[in-house]
């Protein structure tokens, strides 16, 4: 196609005259080679790329190419644009995606995109929990009449896949995680329950029991907001959980890490003894370090940072956040500017509690997971902004994620 047009332009060049300059300029544009078009496309946001698929057949094939999706993700994860996905747990279901970098304030609705309900084939589930995310995919637990259905969903592309439940354990799992094994280019779901450690591989499309190297059992504490894995940054290739360990008579809290490539469990001790009766705590990633937040009865939240991974003596308390607006706050992530975004929660409504008993297993604690709004602090711990998104007091779940064009290694694609 390009050759024909070159000839056509060359013919017109012979005519000369005033058209010459315009034609030569056109010639320049035509000569933009594929590798340069790709370089430009690689720097576009996912939303634009999806829209530009229909520019022409060439662009469609360039953008649809899985290698392109990979390269695009690699480039964008150097300076990731973090988004928050909010989804109301109960029906009628609303969901929204907020661009944290674009939002000047938490009220900034120009940075917030309502996810089209038709985009989401999850309207039939009475109760949905947004769990965590990895490489643009969100892990969802969807309940209908006490039955758990697990989905992986890429909200940017609409791709979704249902994950079969583990054949080994019938009950709901205490810990679950979702991550990426770089060595095999595989996505893994990890389930850690009282005596079992299982891994689901997207490539193998099968669950596998793992013989645990660290001691089990680990249990989670329902009264805390814990028992959720660290989102996004699978720290050093491992999924991390907060867990409680029983050591004959003594119960202590510990971080459990599962390395996705080595398939091994290990324990990481906490900086301080945390009294679960009076404190809430959980893990997150702060400025590239594994971090722990702890809140007590008072309105402050302590932020601890592990300066050297797995080195207990490197824990140091770096920041204290004050919370005046919500019942509790928990940090989620940082923006590029270094501001801390947190979720603000309150106690669930009574209606919500009863509904969730009806639709979710008894172990599920409705209070600990639903959020009421977001908060923003600067890196000194000063409150910048807060926004109660949930005016109906129904509560929503949220997770931080980044957009990607990636698809899962599976045979059948549903979109």
């Amino acid at each position, binding site marked *: 196609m390009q050759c024909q047009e070159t000839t056509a332009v060359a013919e017109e060049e012979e005519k000369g005259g005033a058209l010459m300059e315009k034609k030569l300029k056109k010639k*320049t*544009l035509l*000569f*933009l080679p594929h590798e340069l078009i790709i370089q*430009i496309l690689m*720097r*576009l946001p996912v939303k634009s790329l999806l829209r*530009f698929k229909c*520019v022409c*057949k060439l662009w469609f094939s360039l953008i649809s190419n899985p290698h392109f999706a990979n390269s695009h993700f690699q480039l964008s994860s150097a300076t990731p644009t973090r988004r928050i996905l909010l989804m109301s747990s109960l029906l009628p279901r609303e969901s929204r995606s907020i661009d944290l970098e674009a939002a000047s304030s938490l009220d900034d609705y120009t940075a917030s995109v309502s996810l089209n309900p038709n985009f989401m084939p999850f309207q039939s589930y009475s109760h949905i929990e947004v769990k965590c995310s990895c490489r643009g995919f969100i892990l969802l637990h969807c309940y209908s009449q006490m039955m758990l259905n697990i989905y992986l969903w890429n909200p940017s592309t609409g791709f979704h896949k249902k994950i079969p439940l583990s054949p080994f354990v019938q009950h709901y799992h205490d810990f679950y995680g979702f991550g990426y094994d770089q060595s095999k280019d595989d996505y893994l779901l990890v389930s850690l329950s009282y005596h079992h450690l299982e891994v689901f591989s997207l490539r193998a499309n099968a669950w596998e029991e793992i013989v645990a190297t660290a001691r089990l059992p680990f249990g989670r504490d329902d009264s805390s907001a814990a028992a959720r894995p660290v989102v996004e940054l699978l720290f050093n290739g491992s999924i991390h959980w907060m867990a409680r360990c029983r050591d004959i008579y003594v119960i202590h809290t510990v971080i459990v890490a599962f390395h996705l490539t080595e398939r091994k469990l290990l324990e990481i001790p906490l900086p301080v003894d945390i009294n679960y009766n009076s404190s809430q705590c959980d893990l997150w990633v702060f400025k590239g370090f594994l971090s722990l937040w702890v809140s007590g009865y008072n309105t402050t939240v302590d932020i601890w940072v592990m300066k050297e991974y797995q080195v207990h003596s490197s824990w140091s308390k770096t920041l204290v956040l004050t919370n005046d607006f919500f019942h509790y706050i928990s940090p989620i992530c940082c923006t590029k500017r270094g501001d801390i975004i947190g979720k603000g929660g309150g106690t669930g409504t009574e209606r919500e509690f009863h509904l969730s008993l009806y639709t979710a297993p008894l172990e599920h604690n409705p209070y600990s997971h639903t959020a009421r709004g977001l908060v923003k602090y600067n890196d000194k711990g000063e409150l910048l902004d807060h926004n109660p998104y949930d005016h109906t007091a129904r509560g929503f779940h949220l997770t931080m994620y980044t957009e990607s064009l990636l698809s899962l290694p599976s045979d059948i694609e549903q979109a």
Partner: protein
Amino acid sequence: MSKTVKDAIETIPTDEINSISLSLVRSEILTKVIEYCKKHNSAQMSDVDLMDWDVEFANVHYTTLFDLVLSANYMNINCLLDLVCGKIADMIKGKTPGEIAKLFDIKDVSTYEEDN
């Protein structure tokens, strides 16, 4: 990096310079490229100031940007390529597919409707 750029400029024979850019503004493009390289090789500006300067440098018309991207690619100047590709991406990200086709002079606009 600076040595590569310097070598590239020194080793390009005079008649090859004519074939880098096909438009009538080729001498201007080479001047801009040299200006960029000189600025980035000098240790005078702070990182922040240099970034501001880059933004100003890339604030030009599409045709100039396309010429710059071709030149940066041919002359193997990665930081300039990165800057200009980023600028083009920034300028086109909000456009409609139709506007993109027009800009890149694409003839076979597909009527493919993207599934969403």
